[in-house]
């Protein structure tokens, strides 16, 4: 899952430490999020979206989502029809 945290953070001239303090996480978590090494939980995603004043979908990019593919596979299974 990609995100635009770095983009929004730089646009708003916020440092990683300031963002980390606002979201009550460590700076290392912000670095990992920006590098795409760590996926935020729903709570953190919500907090980050609130901080930047955007929706979660705007901040986090769900692409080629395996979960959606899995959900489709389950729903299209004859057992569940």
């Amino acid at each position: 899952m990609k995100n635009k945290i770095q983009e929004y953070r730089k646009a708003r001239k916020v440092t990683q430490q300031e963002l980390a303090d606002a979201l009550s996480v460590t700076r290392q978590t912000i670095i990992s999020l920006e590098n795409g090494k760590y996926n935020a939980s729903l709570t953190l995603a919500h907090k980050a979206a609130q901080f930047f004043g955007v929706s979660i979908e705007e901040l986090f990019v769900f692409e080629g989502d395996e979960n959606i593919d899995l959900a489709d596979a389950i729903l299209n299974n004859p057992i569940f029809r």
Partner: protein
Amino acid sequence: MEDFKKKVEKRALISSILCSSSLAVYFALRFLTKNASDFGQGLAMGVWIGMEFVAVVNTVRLFATLKSEKALKELYIKENDERNKAIERETSQKSIIISSVGIAAGAIVSGFFDVKVCAVLCAVLAFIALVITCMRAYYNKTM
């Protein structure tokens, strides 16, 4: 943050009780292990000294944290950071798997040389399996 402060205060209190009761624990250990071998006595004392050292360091650290709002917030973030929790979770899961495989391998190899060691390692494995089963049952009910 107030709830967290109370939690830290409680931890500091428990830690300081542990420190202050150290003399009683020392004499109790001396009494309980008086007939034990030198190795047994040394081991018990070593564990006690180690625990005491950790308790003292912990107490000093916690009381210092309680004095500063900044330090308290830093500790709160450090303890509640979701990446740290995820790392902790992953580490625990992987560690238990690797340890169990190591113990199982050890049990198989030791079976060729010493039955006692093999039995102890098998007992350890059985205990780990029991703990995992109980924890899984608990979290299945509570989550």
